[in-house]
Each structure stands twice: as structure tokens, then as C-alpha cells.
């Protein structure tokens, strides 16, 4: 039995979890900052790191208590090293280093995106994974299409050239006057909207597996807001006015259709081209029902996605990724830095 403690603090959730053999969750604690940031309509860096500092000790202690073990039983401590907000990452990394020193347990610095990959190993009942698989990671900060050929082996097929998919949801949500976060609120509005009402553009890109969502965002703005004369008053730089004669629900449904269609088309195409055995989707946007349904309908391959509580940021996925890193004999030293920008590809862990 291998017990890994995972710690995650890259953005706006402070989380700790204990995972057994990389597949079984012994405990999973998340202190969400959504209420804190909702009042501003986004994650504010200083408020986020302060909240992490306040929560982390309590969250780790609870994860250990829920798992019913003490620190001496742990095999390693895995912590998110990046990508993310530097101030937030440092809180988790420093706490993990402190624990590693105090307990004498090895430290493992984990890529947050790899965590999202390993959230798929935590779905129950566990089914063996046969490589290669194509993975779409979609969240507020990331839109990545990967080919995974083995544990820790990734080939990056493409990603967003401008806005992440979840970021487009958040920005369009803000434009439509919906509460933060945009994703679930747009999905809710879309239920009562006509997805065919607007034909929003899909970006045509040179690279077939890259994404672009800034065009669809701008198209939404064009349809939904009152036109201005282009001369901006610097004091009123956030002033956009919604048109009275358009249905927010229709806009939400049509926007969601455009984004989902692009994500599904490229993922299915990549899976076919690379003889994948399965399609995996993870990250906050993978909680979107329209995305899950469309992916299942259009793919002949099985589609795997995490349970809802593991789509958004959590530490169980960091512990699961840590398990495979631990098994392959890799360790990080106490001099480990954090990496605010850290792509996931075949060079992620290369020196």
C-alpha cells in the first residue's frame, strides 16, 4: 500500500488529499474561495494567497484525519509546482517542504495539468487504461489537447492561441451580466435558450489541433451589446451596455454550442488520427453537460471524464499523479522552485 499526500494551491482552491496506490481516495478536502472571489468577478492574486495561508494548515490536518493515518504512514508528499499564480503556488510548495523536513518524507513537485490527467485514474470503479489515449484538458486557465502514450509520457497536440475555453465562458458570462464563475451560469442560462439562434464563428487555424476562442467572444459582444463609436473614455473603460432586444439565454446556448463543437471536433479527430483507445476529458469545463454529451455522441471511442468534484481543482489528482512519479523513482529536493508557466509535454520533467 502506497499512501501519497497531495497538496494543491495553484489558483483559488486550497486542497489536500490522501490517495492510496494512485487510484483510491482516502480523503479529499477542498476549501473553496469561490465566495471570496465572486464578489469581484474573478480571482484576485493577493486575496487568493492570503486565503491559502489561512486555510492550508487546517485543510492538510483534515485530509490526514479523514484518511485516518498519521504522517509517519505516508510514503511521499506531492504538491503542485505549477502552472498557476506564483503567490498561490508558493503557499502550497512551502508548506509541503516544511512537512517534508518535519516528517522526513520525500517531496514530489507535480505539474497541475498532469494532475488533471490523473483525475481520470480516480473514477470509480477503476478500469485499466490502455494507451495511447487522447486527453482534452479544459479549464479557466487551460485548453490543452494531449496524446498520452504511457505514464508520464505526453505529446502536446495543440492548445489555445488566445483565450482558454473556461476563460471564454467567464468573459462571456461577465458580458451577459451573469454571476462568477461564468461556466456553470452560462450552462444554466443555455438550458432555456435556442442554440441555433446565433451562428457564432469557429476559428479556422493553420494548425488543426490548436484552438482560438477570442473570435467567438468578440462575436458575442457584437451581437449582445450596444455599438460604440470607438472613442473610449479612459475612466469608463469597462462600460459595455447589453442590448435590450436579445435573449441572454439564446446567446448563452449559441455560444456554448460554438465552443463545445470546436472542442469535440478537434478531440475526436485527434483520437482517430492517433489510434487512441479512449478519449479523456478533464478540468473545470469537463463538468459541462453539453460538452460531455456531445463528446459521447460524436465519438465512437469510449469517453471518460471525472466525477464532478474532481473536475475542478483538487488535491486527490495531485496525489494520484504523485503516485506514478513516486513509483518511477523520481524525487524533488527542498531547493525546488515553483513554475508559474509550465507546459505539459515530453519535456515537462526534463532538466
Amino acid at each position, binding site marked *: 500500500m502506497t499512501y501519497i499526500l497531495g497538496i494543491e494551491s495553484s489558483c483559488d482552491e486550497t486542497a489536500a488529499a490522501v490517495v492510496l496506490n494512485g487510484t483510491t481516495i482516502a480523503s479529499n478536502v477542498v476549501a473553496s474561495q469561490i465566495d471570496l472571489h465572486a464578489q469581484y468577478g474573478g480571482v484576485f492574486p*493577493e486575496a487568493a494567497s492570503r486565503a491559502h495561508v489561512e486555510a492550508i494548515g487546517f485543510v492538510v490536518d483534515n485530509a490526514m484525519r479523514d484518511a485516518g493515518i498519521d504522517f509517519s504512514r505516508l510514503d511521499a508528499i506531492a504538491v503542485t509546482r505549477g502552472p498557476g499564480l506564483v503567490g498561490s503556488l508558493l503557499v502550497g510548495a512551502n508548506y509541503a517542504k516544511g512537512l517534508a523536513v518535519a516528517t522526513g518524507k520525500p517531496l514530489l513537485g507535480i505539474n497541475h495539468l498532469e494532475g488533471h490527467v490523473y483525475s481520470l485514474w480516480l473514477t470509480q470503479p477503476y478500469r485499466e487504461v490502455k494507451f495511447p489515449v487522447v486527453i482534452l484538458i479544459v479549464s479557466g486557465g487551460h485548453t490543452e489537447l494531449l496524446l498520452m502514450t504511457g505514464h508520464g509520457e505526453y505529446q502536446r497536440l495543440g492548445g489555445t492561441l488566445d483565450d482558454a475555453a473556461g476563460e471564454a465562458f467567464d468573459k462571456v458570462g461577465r458580458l451577459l451580466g451573469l454571476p462568477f464563475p461564468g461556466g456553470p451560469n452560462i450552462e444554466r442560462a443555455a438550458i432555456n435558450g435556442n442554440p441555433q439562434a446565433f451562428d457564432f464563428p469557429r476559428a479556422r487555424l493553420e494548425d488543426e489541433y490548436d484552438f482560438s476562442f477570442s473570435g467567438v467572444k468578440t462575436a458575442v459582444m457584437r451581437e449582445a451589446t450596444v*455599438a460604440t463609436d*470607438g472613442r473610449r473614455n*479612459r475612466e469608463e473603460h469597462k462600460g459595455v451596455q447589453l442590448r435590450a432586444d436579445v435573449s441572454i439565454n439564446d446567446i448563452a446556448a449559441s455560444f456554448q454550442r460554438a465552443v463545445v463543437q470546436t472542442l469535440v471536433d478537434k478531440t475526436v479527430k485527434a483520437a482517430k488520427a492517433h489510434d487512441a483507445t479512449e478519449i479523456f476529458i478533464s478540468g473545470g469545463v469537463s463538468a459541462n453537460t453539453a460538452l460531455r454529451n456531445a463528446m459521447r455522441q460524436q465519438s465512437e471511442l469510449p469517453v471518460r471524464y471525472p466525477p464532478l468534484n474532481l473536475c475542478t481543482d483538487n488535491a486527490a489528482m495531485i496525489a494520484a499523479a504523485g503516485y506514478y512519479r513516486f513509483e518511477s523513482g523520481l524525487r524533488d529536493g527542498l531547493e525546488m522552485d515553483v513554475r508559474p508557466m509550465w507546459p505539459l509535454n515530453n519535456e515537462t520533467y526534463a532538466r
Partner: protein
Amino acid sequence: MPILKEGELDIITHSAEQTARLGTRLGTLLLPGDVICLSGDMGAGKTVFSAGLGRGWGATTPMSSPTFNLVHQHARAKDDVLLYHLDCYRLKTDEDVESIGLEEILGPRSCVVFEWPEQIEPWLPPEHLWINLGIMEALRRNLVFKANGKRYEHLLNEFRGITYG
């Protein structure tokens, strides 16, 4: 139409591609230490302009939106100069600005592009190139360049030269 005024330039673009192309031209002219401010509403083309600028500068990674991480760092093959790309929309307090390490970012060996610069105006270096992106209609954008300081008057003249021949 360019307004023939020292230290200012007014351009209308008709597509995102055109906006990006202007960014590319500016990117080729940047020197270490340069600071570019991109001010405009959501959808005005700040990230589109930046993406072009990154290409012109020679960035090895695409200049995607820095909204989520607040700061993106790009490198290029020809030297060790860094290009920083910041979204300041969510920076409100001194502590926010401190937490992203602005002092280290604004160095002699780096170029910096700020989106939503009005959010951190008190912390901006007094000399910079300010670009206002206005949404006119559908795909048309009005870009107004304003040079603050000698270096940026020179940069704007060079930019005017390669843009209008």
C-alpha cells in the same frame, strides 16, 4: 488615417489579421527595456495585437491570453531578453502588484506588454508607448498610439516609417 502630430498616430484596422499585423511590425522594433500599454475593452483586440507583437519580436511560444495567470513570460532564440505579457484587470491593491513581482519584470533586459494598464497607472513607468484600441463596429478597430518620452517618440516614428513606407 494617420494624424500628422508628433508623438501620436491614429490607425483604423478592418480585421483581426490587420490588427495582429500592426502588432508584428511593432514587435520587430522593440528594444530591451521597452514598455507597451494596451488599453481597450473586452474584444477590442488587445490579445490579438499582442499575439502579432510576439511573432514580430520572435517569441518561441504563442502570446496567448494572460488573463488566468496574470503574467506570461516569453523567450526568443536570438538572445536572453524576455518578453512579459501582463493582464492587470485583476490587480487592485499595492499587494496585488507586489505579488506579481512587477519590479523584477520591469528590467533593462525585458520588454513588457500591459493589458488593462489603467488598473495599475500609479505603478507604470512614466515613459511608455500607450495604445488605445477602440471598437468601431463589427471588425473595425481604431488604434491610437501615443508616445510618452523620447524613446517612444523615436519608436513611433520608426513604426510609422515601416507602416506607411
